[in-house]
Structure formats: C-alpha cells, structure tokens
C-alpha cells in the first residue's frame, strides 16, 4: 500500500519598501504595497487560479479519491484578502469538497520557534483562529516555517495538542531509514512525524524543467513507476512542496500543469495506491521508529539546516535585534506597532540577507527583491530603527495617533 500525501505551502511575505535612513521617524510605512499587490496578482494569475482550478477538477473527477493538503501562511491569506480575494474563494471551493485539509503554522511564517517560544505559541493560535474562521477546520497537524524541526519543537507541539507534524526527510536525520514511514521524535512519543520524500518532491519542484537532468523530460508514466516502486517498502509517500511550483517556479510552458492533471489518475490505476491527507496518515499508520534530532533541520538548500536564515552575522544580528524588543513592543499596547513588528518576523526578510552562494547566482537570487543581501540588511535595520523610535513612549503619544 502506498498512500500519497500531498502538502503544498502557500506563502507570500509582506515585502519591505526601499526604506532609507531619511525615512526613519517620518511615518512613511514599511511595506511596499504596490510591489506586494503586483506580485500577488501575478502569482495568482500564473499559479493560484489555474492550479486551484485543476485541483478542483481532479477532486471532482476522482470522486473523492484525490486528496490534498495546504498550509496557507497568515500573511499570504491577508494578501489574498487585500489583493486577490477571488483566490481565497477558490480555496473555499476546494475546502467544500471535503478532500482538502488545511494545516497550522505560525501566522507570520516566522522563525519565532528558534527565538521566542511565547511569540511562537501566540502566532500558532492566531493562525488556528484564522483557519477556523475561513475554512471551519481545526487542524491536528502542524508544520513549522520551512519545515524547521527538532526534538524541542516536537515536544512543544505535542503539548499543544497536535497529533502530527511535518518535517524534512533529510539524510542526516534518517541515515539508512526510509522517509516513507511515520516516525516519532524522542521527546514526543505521541506526535507522529511525516517526513518529506525529498527526492520525489524535488523531482517535481526543482528538476521538472531542468534539461540538464538525466531524467528530463519527466513524464507521468515515469513518475508513477517511481511511486509504484515504493509499494512493499513504505506506507506514505510525502510529497511536500511550495504551491508556487505550479506555474510560477515551473512555468506553464514546461508542461507542469499537464503533468499535474494526469498524475493522480495514473497513480490511482494501481489498486494498492491511494491519496491521503496528513491527519488521515496520522490516524492510519503507526510510527516505525524514534528519531533523535537536536540541531534544527529544515527543507532549505543542500545543508537542510537554518543557515539560509541565520548563517551570517547580518542575519544573526537582525534576528536577535527584532526579538530583543519583543517585551517592549507587546507592553506598548499599540496594536499597529505589534502587527508591524510581527510582519518583520517573516522568515523571507532574513532569507534575503543570505550570502551563501551569492556569487553563484542561485535560487536565493531568483526570489530576492533586493539587488544584494547587504541592501536587504540595510533596509531591514532602518525599519527596525524606526520601530525602536516608535517604542520611545513620548514619540508614541505624539505620532501613533496619526498612523
């Protein structure tokens, strides 16, 4: 039996304005509304609309046998509401089929787990409320930002009442083991772990259009053969990827939509295959072993660690400084300020400061609105200085009223 478990991450950050030292203290706002709107509407057109449509057709066509799951970051949802409300409608249509599961994450797609447990929990609760109000779902499975995971997280998430959690099936945590089974963490015996099969996931997400890849072109037949070969030595095939894979990272002309349209039917041809959501997987299968993971593992880069967000001194300093003011921000009672501060926690802001392989012009560059990591740092620090200025109580009384 192979149960295919699809999970798609849907996320868009609130990108920052070109914010210079001359803007500090001038109430000019931090976020680039124009750019955020443009990008949201572009991605909606290229990815969210067409892919949601295909998913809905597939679910209808296969009569409830095709199932998928999503995690929508709170900041992505807010941008749907603001710039592309029809996308949210199409997610609601998908929700109505009963074949779609929504997971929980931190509302702000933040790295708060690594820096403030209190903030981390608050953001999960915010997200939980948002998902309940939109889709009337109460997720039992959690996924942390960028699949960052370790023992400590597992324990915390178990105590928050979740039954399952997603993580990267990285070689260095699995060793000889297969990602196609459920596991538990040493610190959380009741929390089942679903591990990403990074090979088969990345074949679609990263390599699909790579003409230098020996398996190019990736056909539905070939991919289904790989899936079927798991029969007999695995329970669940976890295919985890960014939703923007469809139409945005892999453009329509690569044939990605056709691939998606035909894949589920082909997989279902094998009598032993089915599709499953994360919560169903947790109910259906038992863990086969316990993993002991101390250092945080993630789904990013070949390192599969957190160095894409905190690998250099600029990133470390920026993250440290944003969490340093947590107490002051929260005590200010200024909701606008708290919200601004939280949006600044979105992991993308730190990812943009990454200098790893900057010279090679790799994936980091493609997703980066800045010319270089240094500009990302400068912009972020200028804004943080403005936040600090607003924290000055005298300033708050005078200026915040105008905001």
């Amino acid at each position, binding site marked *: 039996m192979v149960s295919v478990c699809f999970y798609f991450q849907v996320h868009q950050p609130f990108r920052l304005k070109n914010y*210079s*030292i001359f803007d500090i203290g001038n109430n000019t706002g931090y976020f680039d509304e124009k750019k955020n709107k443009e990008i949201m509407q572009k991605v909606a057109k290229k990815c969210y609309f067409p892919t949601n449509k295909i998913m809905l057709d597939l679910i209808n066509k296969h009569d409830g046998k095709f199932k998928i799951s999503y995690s929508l970051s709170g900041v992505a949802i807010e941008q749907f509401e603001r710039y592309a409300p029809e996308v949210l409608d199409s997610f609601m249509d998908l929700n109505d089929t009963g074949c779609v599961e929504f997971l929980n994450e931190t509302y702000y797609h933040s790295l708060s787990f690594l820096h403030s447990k209190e903030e981390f929990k608050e953001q999960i609760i915010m997200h939980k409320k948002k998902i309940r109000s939109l889709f009337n779902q109460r997720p039992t499975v959690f996924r942390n930002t960028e699949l960052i995971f370790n023992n400590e997280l597992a324990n915390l998430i178990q105590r928050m009442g979740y039954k399952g959690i997603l993580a990267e099936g990285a070689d260095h945590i699995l060793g000889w083991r297969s990602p196609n089974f459920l596991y538990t963490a040493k610190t959380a015996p009741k929390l089942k772990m679903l591990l990403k099969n990074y090979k088969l996931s990345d074949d679609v997400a990263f390599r699909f259009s790579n003409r230098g890849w020996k398996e190019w072109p990736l056909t539905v037949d070939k991919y289904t053969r790989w899936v079927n070969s798991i029969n007999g030595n695995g329970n669940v095939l976890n295919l985890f990827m960014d939703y923007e894979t469809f139409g945005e990272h892999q453009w329509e002309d690569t044939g990605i939509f056709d691939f998606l349209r035909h894949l589920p039917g082909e997989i279902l041809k094998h009598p032993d295959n089915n599709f499953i959501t994360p919560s169903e997987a947790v109910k259906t299968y038992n863990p086969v072993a316990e993993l002991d993971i101390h250092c945080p593992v993630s789904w990013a880069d070949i390192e599969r660690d957190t160095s894409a967000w905190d690998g*250099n001194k600029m990133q*470390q300093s920026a993250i440290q400084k944003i969490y340093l003011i947590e107490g002051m921000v929260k005590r200010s009672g200024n909701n606008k300020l708290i919200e601004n501060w939280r949006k600044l926690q979105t992991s993308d802001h730190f990812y943009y400061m990454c200098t790893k392989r900057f010279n090679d012009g790799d994936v980091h560059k493609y997703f980066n609105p800045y*010319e*270089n990591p240094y500009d990302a740092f*400068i912009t972020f620090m200028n804004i943080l200085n403005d936040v600090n200025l607003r924290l000055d109580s005298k300033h708050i009384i005078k200026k915040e009223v105008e905001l």
Partner: protein
Amino acid sequence: MRILMFGWEFPPFKTGGLGTACYDLTRGLSYKGVDVTFVMPKTPENAKSDFVKLIGANNLCKSIKVRKVSTILTPYMSSEAYSNELKKLKINHNSSSDVYGRNLYQEVLRYAEMAKIIAEEEEYDLIHAHDWMTYMAGINARKISGKPLVVHIHATEFDRTGGNPNPMISHLEYTGLHEADLIIANSNFTKNNVIRHYNINPDKIKVVHWGIDPENPYYNLNYSSPLNKNEKIVLFLGRITIQKGPDYFIEAAKKVLDFKKNVRFVIAGDGDMLPRIVERAAELGISDKVTFTGFLRGADVHRVFQMADLYVMPSTSEPFGLVALESMKNNTPLIISKQSGVSEVVNNALKVDFWDINEMTNKIVNVLSYEELHQELKKNSFEEVKKFDLVKPAEKCIEVYNEALRGVHKW
C-alpha cells in the same frame, strides 16, 4: 603571435588606471607566450628611468620589448594641460620644446608620424592601440604593414568630460573606432557608450573585463590609521575630475555627518576640480572632517585603502573602475556607482546611482553603523576578488586577436 602595441606609461609613472591596465595586459600576454613590442611615450619625466630593465627584471615579461617615442603626451590630457606642459618646457629647457607639436592635436599627429618609423622597423602580426591618443599611430602602422588593427577603448571622451566632449578628441576617437578591425571595450557599459555615441556595429566590439594582479606585497601591509582611532574613515580615491564624481562624494559627506559625527572623509587624488571641492567642503562647514592627501602612488595607495573603513567610487561614468578591485584586494568594503563597468562583474559591493546622494548617505551610514554589515562585505568581497587575475583578460584579448587575424571584417 607578435603584437605591436601602442600603450601608455607603466607604473610607477602613471596618472591613472590606464598605465596599470597596459602593464597588466602586457604581463598577462607575455605569460601566455605572446611577443609584445610596446611603444610608449618618452616624457621628460620618465626619460631617465630604465623601463626595459624594470620589465626585464620580472620573469613574467621575457617576451616584452619596449620602444619609446619622445612626446609630452599623457593619458587624460586636455588641450589646456598640453599647452601648460609645453609652456613649462619652454621655460625650463628653452630649445628642446621645439620638437613637440604646437598643440595637443599636433602632438598626437606628430606621435602618429613617428609611429610609422617603428611600424617599419618592427616585425609583428597585429597592432593593438590603447585609447584615442594612439589611434592615429595605430592607423598609420596598419597603412604601412597591412596588419589588422585592434583598438582598445578604456574610456570614451563622453565619460571623461561628463558628456561635453572636445570635438577634436571625439573625432579622433571616432576615426580610430571606425578604422579598427575589431574593438576591445573594457565593459558592457563602455560598449554601450561606444554604440550610442559613435554608431558602431555592436558585433565589432568585444568586451574584455579587467583583472587584477593576484599577488602584490602591498596588499598585506596591515596598515592602520595614524588618524584619530575613534573616527571611521570613508575614502574617495581617483582623479578629482568631473568623471569621478568628487562633488557627489562631498555632498554625501555633509549628509553623513548629520547622522554620525565621528567620521573622516579622505579625498586622495589630484585633478582640475580639487579647488572646487576644497571650497565646497568649507561652504558646507565640514572642512575639519575632510582630509585631502594629494596624488598618491605605490604603497601609499594601499596604505590609504587599508586605513579606510569604506571606499566610495561615485563616478558619473566609469568605463571599468579597476580601483574598485584594488579596494577589494586591500580588504576595504566598497560602494560603487551603478554607472560603472566594474558593477557588472562584482556582486559583493553596495551599488548606487552616482546622483543619488541620499542613497549614498544611507549606505555609508549603515556600513559605518553596523559592524556585522561591514564584516560581511569585507569578507565576501575579499573572497570574490580572488576570481580576478591577469591571465583571463589576456586570454580574451588573444581570442580577439585571433578573430582579427582570421578574417576580413566588413563593418
């Protein structure tokens, strides 16, 4: 392969990047086994020192032969500068000045005439001429020998003058560029300027970005500042001319000082705009924060880089900007103008539009304020500059030579 090259003076007698570029290119070519006969002006200043010996001493340069032609031409020379030079000669050496041309144009033509003699005497396969003053010499050599001519453009007259070209110079530039079989431009930035101003077929222009000598004992001087240790140092280094944007630097200095007090701005170089910049600093009330070093050469260039916390190159139009690589080699983080060739090939530098004084200020203040930013820039730019050397540009030039030798181009 034997090249007859019309170039410019070698270090230490140089007034800018062109001398270094010629020196580095000939060394790179020599390393690749190309024979170069290097024709250079013999000025009264450099006449006494033995350049052949200087080059011969370096075993990289076995295949280089130097021929000198008496002239008082120097690169970047303006008509006024030429007349001044001529006047000085008349005063100092009364009779000897008669041999030189009455004005800059005459002198360039006289130089080109003398080039004919050399062109007849030497054996070579191809002619390579550097910048407009030698283009006529290159054209003459081609007439005599029938060998292909490659002209190298390091800067157009439009770059040098902030868009107000001297018609005589741009005409010579135009003539050389049109006559040449192929053109080497030191960046896409320069290539585009050549296309725009001189209507040249883009296929005729080959881009060869400059490299830098990976080994130089001066890089590791570990020189630290004798100036006030509590002050951060921001450096401008280059000719103080309209092309290099010293006026933008001084305006940004004023704005930076509004945010941060303990900053010193060091302006290293000489040029016709120097008096104006000194006056402007006084007008802005920041004279006590600005230090003028005059023209620096040799080890002093490296010392001043190593003293500085940040180098700013605000050039209004910088065909390449070799000095940016020197800053990186000396472990000094940098801000470079987007209107430069070097910004095409360097990633780990901050980049600004030269006219955007506020953005320049924003970046200077941040680099000086955050040690983590300073450190990352420093570390990564030092790492990045390792990919530059003298061999790669020489190899690309050889490719261009081969193309010129292969066929008749009809442009």
